[in-house]
């Protein structure tokens, strides 16, 4: 028997808050975070400055005299041709376009994903492969034939037509995400439901949907962002009474009355991006969870 001496390390291992590792990790993250924040900072700061100050100072300097006039102007006074009522005119149109488009596109894509993951019928994979290829086709290529299709369907210029366009072009990526997500749900659950006498729609609405909150959050974020930010479809496939906010943004940013009103441009830019930004900030945690479920298992 050897008598063990009780010196040497004991108790919890000492932890240093400032270790080389931590400095490296947080240092890198902070530098990167700054890089990401600078544009937002510049946008906000600029939107609060008056025009003379912008011309004088540098873009990173905080405003000497804070003014909200550019925001007011962007929201309610900036002109597009003869209409000088700013972005507010397009805001409700954007809502009217985004809400139905997001709902319809997600509904259809989730049903696609469900049918693909759980009801693999003959040929389903072929259509899915075509959709995947479709994800790579630039919208510009499809612009013209789409006009013809909508004309033949009698939907050209209507809100329904625009919803259809968003549904079609959002379908590939969304279907991919939903298909992957539903494939991660245990197959036995689906089988159990079938034995319990639930049909295609019953399983979808009563078993799958209640389990799919995370992926729906992801889909909503992606679609709200995409559709809210869309300019091309909104302007090409509808009439002026439905023009979304981005059309006014384009008009404000691309129109120059002598001097570019950078502050108004920036305020308009932030205002336009506000809805998707808020959705991101509110649901960021769910977003990561949903992504984890929808993209990780292929």
């Amino acid at each position, binding site marked *: 028997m050897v008598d063990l001496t009780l010196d040497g390390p004991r108790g919890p291992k000492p932890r240093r808050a400032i270790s080389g590792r931590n400095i490296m*990790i947080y240092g*890198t993250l902070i530098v*990167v*975070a700054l890089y*990401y*924040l600078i*544009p937002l900072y*510049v946008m906000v700061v600029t939107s609060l400055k008056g025009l003379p100050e912008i011309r004088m100072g*540098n*873009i990173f300097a905080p405003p000497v005299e804070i003014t909200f006039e550019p925001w007011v102007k962007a929201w309610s006074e900036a002109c597009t041709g003869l209409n000088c009522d700013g972005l507010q005119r397009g805001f409700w149109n954007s809502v009217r376009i985004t809400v139905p488009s997001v709902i319809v596109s997600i509904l*259809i894509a989730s*049903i*696609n994903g469900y*049918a693909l993951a759980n009801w693999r*019928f*003959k040929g389903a994979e072929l*259509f*899915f*492969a*075509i*959709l*995947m*290829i*479709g*994800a*790579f*086709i*630039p*919208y*510009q*290529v*499809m*612009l013209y034939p*789409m006009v013809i*299709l909508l004309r033949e369907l009698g939907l050209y210029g209507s809100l329904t037509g625009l919803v259809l366009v968003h*549904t079609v072009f959002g*379908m590939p*990526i969304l279907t*991919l995400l939903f298909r992957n997500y539903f494939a991660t749900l245990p197959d036995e659950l689906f089988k159990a439901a079938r034995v319990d006498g639930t049909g*295609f*729609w019953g399983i979808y609405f009563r078993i799958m949907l209640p389990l799919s909150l995370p992926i729906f959050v992801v889909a909503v*974020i992606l679609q709200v*962002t995409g559709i809210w*930010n*869309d*300019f091309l479809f909104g302007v090409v496939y509808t009439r002026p009474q439905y023009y979304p906010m*981005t059309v006014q943004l384009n008009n404000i*940013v691309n129109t120059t009355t002598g001097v570019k009103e950078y502050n108004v441009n920036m305020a308009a*830019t932030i205002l*336009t*991006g506000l809805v*998707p*930004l808020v*959705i*991101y900030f509110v649901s*960021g945690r769910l977003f990561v969870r949903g*992504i*984890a479920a929808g*993209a*990780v298992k292929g």
Partner: protein
Amino acid sequence: MAQSNVSGRPFRLFRNLNAKIAAIPMILTALVIFVGFSLWTVVYSFTKSGLLPRQDFVGLMQYERLWSNTKWLISIQNLLIFGICMLVFSFVIGFVLACLMDQKIRFEGVFRTILLYPFALSFVVTGVVWQWLLNPDLGIQSVMRGFGWESFAFDPLNNSRIVMFGVVIAALWQGTGFVMVLLLAGLRGIDDEIWKATRIDGIPTWKTYLFVVVPMLRPVMVTTLVIVTAGIVKVYDLVVAQTNGGPGVSSEVPAKYVYDQMFLNQNLGQGFAASTMMLITVAIIIIPWAYLEFGGRKRG
């Protein structure tokens, strides 16, 4: 044995009928929009359509013009530069950031939100902001010079040789956060026991990430690759907002070439020919891959 009550084999089409009915929108989209429109585009690429599609066939004339057009050649070159840079940098940076975020750090939510918020903005906004930040008279260059670094020169948007890198910077700003989140989600999905095993084996963390974790991330990498590559091929708004193809034609990209030909030059035939080339390229790359990735899978 009651062989008599053999029920007839149901008509193949009606098996899982509801699933097929539910898939009709997808089938129509795949066939009418993606296949149909593509074929339509290919057919009209052999015509001399101007402002409106016309069945005025001219053989390969549009293709001959296309491949002798410097703007198109520059577009392709730019897409290659942009694509390679985007793939390499967004994956490398996104992965490094995801690894850092995976170190059980404090304020993870804050960092994640900061890295992800640009993804909520449209390309138009990104283009405008970065055009501004990279403007030599207003942005980074003038500020650095203002601090006394007189020789500082960073002016990609006015230098035709490096303009694509200016575009890449903006695109990375917008897109890397999303790649990071996708990969982070993948990292979170990796079994803890793998980490325990490598700790006991004494494998350094970075090696674990590179040789153990990366291969395990294959599925999420595939999804990310699809999303990033699709974005690369389609890049248009960003370039229009940031450089509008300039200076000169040095930052033209294929999608913009297509659009410009169709609507600016009122030469649909030429636009369709360029579209067809893009379609063919995409198909050549994607079809074998899609077949391997999505086609061969069986129920076990």
